[in-house]
């Protein structure tokens, strides 16, 4: 439905993105690129700037917030486009799935109408064709009895079904990139996996690229090829998911990984202890000087308190740290 990407062109390329409202800067210079059909995860907690990044890419920032930097997608710089030009891309080449489907779907319109509207608006199809495509879409999302489902209102169906409908709407026009912002956080844990599995296969079928934003590391491990870890508005570590999660160099990433309770690290006598990162995420209007993580980092030195580290590294894994964690084989070699 959308013209194919020119070969080799990334689905999206972000360069030095800054998002600010004049007083507070939520995103402080973020750069990344997602190849066509690629999967990138953006990890961060509240206050990391990850949601603002997603909104900035979509052009959906709240009033008073503006961007600097470049967002290259579908042959244009989204940061410089008018709302009208952006609007023609939203839902068509670039779409988003939000966290809470109940507040993201229009409560007074039937779900079938909401999906067919997206199809008609972007492809100009007539009502009957759009309705047929909607039914097909719902079937591909493993939703039971689509003929009845299209006539339902959002509050009449379960959370998992609502989220699948949101995903259906986002994928209806075969976008080049779909952004998912905490898509399963509001769902029950057994439903989470079903929805993620569905998202995984639906994105693969359409060869769309995926930007998965979440604070839940296992989801990224399961679904993404590359990952970027955000802290206080900047990316502190980025690289292939296997590398970053198995051999993280940044202490924040290490801390996040150690905070997850898994069945493997639970001792029978209850003596296991999660290593938690002390302190809290600093407020964006009151960041410490130097590396924003220095107040909570076990390896912080004076240099960390004065100089801000940049992303760097010789391998495919880049991290922004003055004292990155050494790899086991490096230590052995010394």
């Amino acid at each position, binding site marked *: 439905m959308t013209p194919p990407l020119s070969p080799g062109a990334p689905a999206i390329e972000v360069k030095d993105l800054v998002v600010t*409202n004049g007083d*507070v800067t*939520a995103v402080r210079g973020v750069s990344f690129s997602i190849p066509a059909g690629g999967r990138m995860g953006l990890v961060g907690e*509240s*206050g*990391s*700037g*990850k*949601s*603002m990044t997603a*909104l900035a890419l979509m052009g959906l920032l*709240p009033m008073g917030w503006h961007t600097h930097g470049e967002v290259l997608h579908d042959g244009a710089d989204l940061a410089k486009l008018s709302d009208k030009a952006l609007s023609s891309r939203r839902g068509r080449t670039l779409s988003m799935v939000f966290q809470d489907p109940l507040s993201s779907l229009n409560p007074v319109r039937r779900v079938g109408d909401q999906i067919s509207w997206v199809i008609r608006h972007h492809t100009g199809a007539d009502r009957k064709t759009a309705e047929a495509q909607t039914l097909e879409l719902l079937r591909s999302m493993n939703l039971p009895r689509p003929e009845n489902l299209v006539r339902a209102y959002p509050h009449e169906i379960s959370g998992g079904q609502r989220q699948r409908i949101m995903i259906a709407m986002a994928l209806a026009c075969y976008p080049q990139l779909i952004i998912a912002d905490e898509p399963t956080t509001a769902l029950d844990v057994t439903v989470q996996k079903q929805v993620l599995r569905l998202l995984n296969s639906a994105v693969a079928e359409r060869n769309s690229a995926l930007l998965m934003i979440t604070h839940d590391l296992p989801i990224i491990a399961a679904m993404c090829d590359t990952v970027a870890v955000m802290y206080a508005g900047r990316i502190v570590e980025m690289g292939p998911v296997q590398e970053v999660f198995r051999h993280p160099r940044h202490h924040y990433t290490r801390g996040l990984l150690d905070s997850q309770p898994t069945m493997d690290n639970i001792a029978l006598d209850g003596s296991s202890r999660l290593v938690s990162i002390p302190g*809290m*995420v*600093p*407020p*964006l*209007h*009151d960041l410490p000087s130097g590396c924003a993580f220095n107040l909570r980092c076990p390896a912080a030195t004076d240099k960390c308190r004065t100089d801000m580290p940049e992303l760097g590294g010789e391998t495919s894994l880049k991290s922004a740290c003055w004292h990155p964690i050494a790899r086991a084989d490096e230590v052995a070699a010394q």
Partner: protein
Amino acid sequence: MTIAATATIAPKRRRRLDLNASLVVGLVLTLGFLAVAVVSFVWLPSNPNIPVIKNRMLPPFLPDHWLGTDGLGRDIIAQLMVGARTSILVGAGGASIALFLGTITGLVAAAYGKLADETISRGADIMLSIPGMVTALVLAATMGSGALTTILALSAFFTPSFTRVIRAAAMSVLQEDFITSARLYGRGKLFILARHVIPNIGGVMIVQFTLYFAAGILTEAGLSYLGVGVTRPSISWGMMLNEAQQTVGISSPLAIWPGLAIVFVVLGLNLLGDGLRDVLDPKLKQRRA
């Protein structure tokens, strides 16, 4: 969203008064209006009630009568000032009674079970379906016209809408977990309503009060214009409008002054209400990070 979350992680307590245009303008107009009414008790340019025929229909911008005089030679400014008293008395009086009764009924409807809720809500619906003017006219016919009657009429038709607003706001607060906690600690309903619910709906109450105050002034003007409001020696802007009718062909400014006074005061109160709403609500909304 993220920003709301970070804005609430503030280790230092910062009090930032969010002044917005609505609030400032509204405050200026409202305080000005109140000041005029207060001043009228200690000073008036001249007697607003005694006719001075030789001065009748003087045009504005004269040294003794800056806005001129009316058909019987009485100073316009003096009348406006005394009229301000009536507007406050009736407007604030009606709004206050409505606030008091509306809060009680609204809280009872929200907190004392389905039967109470249904009874009060249907009662409010019925009262709201009776046009306010009709109530006012009927009251005036039975009790005689005057400030008191007007206040009663205003209370009658503001209370049910106040009830609705308070009920909705209270119900939303009662859903919160800290209410459950209070009940678990053994606090009774009355304590919870007084100590937990009212402080949290205070913003709503203040804003609604200013808006009904404004509506009260408008309504009072209308009633006095119709002749069922206050009568001399009390003065009302609506009454001034009525009297101005007789001189419309000869000298139109007479109708403009009370009209402008009404416009500015009602505008000021509405702006104040809007401005207050913006200042008071975000602090409550911020917590939904």
